[in-house]
């Protein structure tokens, strides 16, 4: 490590976040991201990493995608954040663009946050207003963000620290893929909404069993609760359709998109609201206010993101990247069957499962040493989040697989011992 980096890390500990800075050093990941381009990150010491983390799809279209940079530059010749009190050209234009491609026909409104958590809060507030009830059901180990209401829907890993967990029984959590538990939670007809990540990301992408999500939606209808689809990580073509919920045959009442919608260039998040549950927008349009939410420069970038991800070329490429990576990972899995034990996949949303309760951490480290950056799942460290970009080139995919095969082999030796494998 260079002197410059050592000094920088000291500053990071001193002024930014001592705990987080140190934790990465302890895990053997001394990454300080400097230059970035396409799906490459460059450490401040110059080492290149292929980014398979993408911050949950924020960099779906690559880092500093030239078309998004251009849109932002051109946009800034005319717009700034805008005045959130007034009808605004860019905010309305993005709302229309979203309505035109929304997963439900009556999803006409969009309310804006500056990040995913805020947009989740808007979704929950919207549901509570529409149903005049407080209770929200989410899944165990859910993750919807760190703002006031979003935090309470998730694992207490992030809320207890701040004495911010739910204490009033307004937030109920049920196990994923358990329809009976879901029905029990809804049976009292006192639930405003079920909030569901179409594929729970931070939990390591456990995949919904066939019929689970559509049946949750049916239960919502049966017990008069709304269905909020959190498409922050699964949306924007990552599952081969614009919104993953569409693949499971669901028309949500409310949908949240974030991260990737801002293309990694301007933070923005959107709560798309069905006409039937957006009553507050008519009753008291000033009910939710956000100076940074839906900043118009963000809207300009987001419209370009929506245009790009809906191109036919992108659809094809997502399929190629998914199929090609899967074929390669299957081969690697066959090489290390005692350690690399499963692949969860929907499109370019993938979770690699290892046969050790912290197995994804050494894999992450060895991939890092081999030039690939992929992160473990915070709430299930057996699983490595493996998230190639939508536009990844064939050459880069091949490069990733080459490095992953080496990295997993080394991690396996760390975990299982270096004696010869079964095959």
């Amino acid at each position, binding site marked *: 490590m260079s002197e410059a980096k050592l000094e920088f890390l000291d500053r990071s500990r001193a002024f930014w976040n001592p705990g987080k800075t140190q934790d990465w050093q302890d895990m053997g990941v001394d990454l300080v991201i400097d230059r970035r381009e396409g799906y490459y990150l460059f450490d401040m010491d110059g080492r290149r990493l292929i980014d398979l983390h993408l911050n949950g799809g924020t960099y779906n279209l690559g880092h500093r*995608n*030239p*078309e998004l*940079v*251009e*849109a932002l530059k*051109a*946009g800034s010749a*005319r*717009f700034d954040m805008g005045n959130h009190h007034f009808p605004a*050209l860019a905010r309305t*234009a993005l*709302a*229309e*663009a979203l309505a*035109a491609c929304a997963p439900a026909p009556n999803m006409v409104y969009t309310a804006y946050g500056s990040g995913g958590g805020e947009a989740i809060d808007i979704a929950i507030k919207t549901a509570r207003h529409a149903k005049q009830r407080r209770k929200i059901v989410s899944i165990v180990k859910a993750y919807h963000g760190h703002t006031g209401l979003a935090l309470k829907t998730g694992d207490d890993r992030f809320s207890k620290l701040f004495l911010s967990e739910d204490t009033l029984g307004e937030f109920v959590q049920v196990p994923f893929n358990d329809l009976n538990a879901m029905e029990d939670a809804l049976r009292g007809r006192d639930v405003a909404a079920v909030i569901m990540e179409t594929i729970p990301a931070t939990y390591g992408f456990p*995949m*919904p*069993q*066939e*019929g*689970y*999500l559509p049946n949750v939606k049916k239960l919502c209808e049966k017990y008069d609760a709304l269905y909020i689809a959190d498409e922050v990580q699964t949306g924007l073509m990552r599952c081969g359709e614009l919104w993953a919920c569409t*693949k*499971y045959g669901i028309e949500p009442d409310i949908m949240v998109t974030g991260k990737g919608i801002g293309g990694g260039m301007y933070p923005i998040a959107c709560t798309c609201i069905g006409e039937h549950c957006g009553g507050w927008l008519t009753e008291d349009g000033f009910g939710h206010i956000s100076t940074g939410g839906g900043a118009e420069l963000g809207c*300009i970038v987001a*419209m*370009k993101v929506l*245009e*790009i991800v809906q*191109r036919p*070329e*992108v659809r*094809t*490429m997502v*399929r*190629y990247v998914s*199929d*090609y*990576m*899967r*074929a390669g990972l*299957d*081969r690697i*899995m*066959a090489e290390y*069957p*005692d350690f690399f*034990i*499963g*692949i*969860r*996949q*929907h*499109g370019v949303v993938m979770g690699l499962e290892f*046969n050790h309760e912290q197995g994804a951490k050494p894999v992450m480290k060895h991939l890092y040493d081999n030039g690939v950056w992929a992160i473990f799942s915070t709430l299930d460290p057996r699983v490595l989040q493996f998230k190639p970009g939508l536009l990844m*080139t*064939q050459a880069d995919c091949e490069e990733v697989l080459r490095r992953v095969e080496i990295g997993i082999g080394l991690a396996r030796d760390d975990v299982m011992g270096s004696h010869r494998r*079964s*095959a």
Partner: protein
Amino acid sequence: MEPQARTLVDISGSHAALAGHADMVLERARWAAEVFQRYDRELTMAIADAVAAAAHENAERFADWAVRETGFGVAAHKKLKNELTSRPLVDFYRNDDYVNPRIDEARKIVEIPRPAGVILALTPSTNPIATLNYKVLISLMTRNAIVISPHPAARECSVDAARALGEAATDAGAPDGAVQIIENPGIPLVEELMVSPKTSVILATGGTAMVRSAYSSSNPAIGVGPGNAPVFVDSTADVDKAAKRIVESKSFDNSALCTNESVLITLEDVDARLRRSFKQAKAYICDADDVDRLRRYLFHDRGFNIECIGRDAAWIAQECGIRVPDGTLVLLAPIAQIGVEEPLSREKLCPVLAYHVVKRRNQAITQARAVLRLAGAGHSAAVHAMDEQVAMAFASAVEAYRVVVNAPCTQGAAGFQTALAPTFTVGTGFYGRSSIGENIGPGHLVHWTRLAYNSDASESFGNYRGLRPGFSGPLPEAPSDGVPGSNGYRARRAEADASVFSGVTREELRRMIAEELRAVLRK
């Protein structure tokens, strides 16, 4: 109110947008090309046959459409060209294998075909569909992906035709994106496509500026310069047949093909006979005043009047105010000189044929060389002679890489009434500042990796008979876990090993062990 997707900030003309568009199309093609390399010959040819059938079926519809859209040529002739560039093209190459390795036991060399990857094909307005058919088929036969950039004047018919071929290809199992077309081919976008490192080779047919631009793109290019074919009718020729063939050639698609005869050269003692034969063959011989009118009409200060491209003789005569008999197929324009001072000695993509008489055979050759020095170097020429020494002398002197003998040059040079390779891209070679001097075919879109053994007799050659690179075929579809009909979450069987070794048993074994282990670990 219906939501509209509007653009508040339009960046479509920016470099970022154009490069982004080009990159996305080409990367999709690269993926297709990569997967295509996994295909075996049977599937490859099945795809080529399916696409050829679609091209054949659509020949008439797109011939009519092309004439309607561009105003060039004769629909019936275009239909014929569209047909010739479909099934017969594939049949012509049916016995040429661009997929399996070739073994040369004597030299101890094995040659493995390696497709170029992504072909960027520029197609012209004069032969839009035939060129498109041809380029798509030679790409598919060689397991290449193709991106077509059509001439803007033939955009609509080309886009529709390419879509039809693309669908036929994917229906037959070709990788998605193996055939793509640029729907709005502006010059800045085409330049981005040409300079992209994702383009493997540019196959350029069209105007000189475009071809030169392809060559200066920094990417490999196979470009084709303009034609300006001289045709020599010798005293040993069967003059009647020669006249008939030349009329047939010039009137075919009204000379929209660049292989058409441009300047006829003959000898004084043939002149009178040849004129009679031409009259019988429905050519009209212009007088001095007619020639003057033609010259003024066909050539502006800026060059050839593109209004006349592919127009019929009667139409051109009428535009010039020349009265010609009904049914006239070709206008013969006698000229006294060849060279810069005589525009009629330049390329004319219409049924007007310059007609020049010389005293001796040697002079015929120097005049023919002069025609090609003016334009069309490396392209085509024709000779009508029964004396093979004349043909040899002519062919070895003119700077053309194909000299058609006793046949219509339009069809003959393009390989349709000769045994030359049927093509819509005529390599103009070094004379024409191009890389290839023969008719372009699938063979030009493949390079070969050569396994070369030690030539020492004590080192024996391996037994490669029947060995194939791992043709693992189309990529298996990854599961969408939890979606009904998808494979669902489970460890899938590893894909068959792509090596030449039979790895099936080993893979099977691994899979079984993996499944057993997993079962144990879950308990």
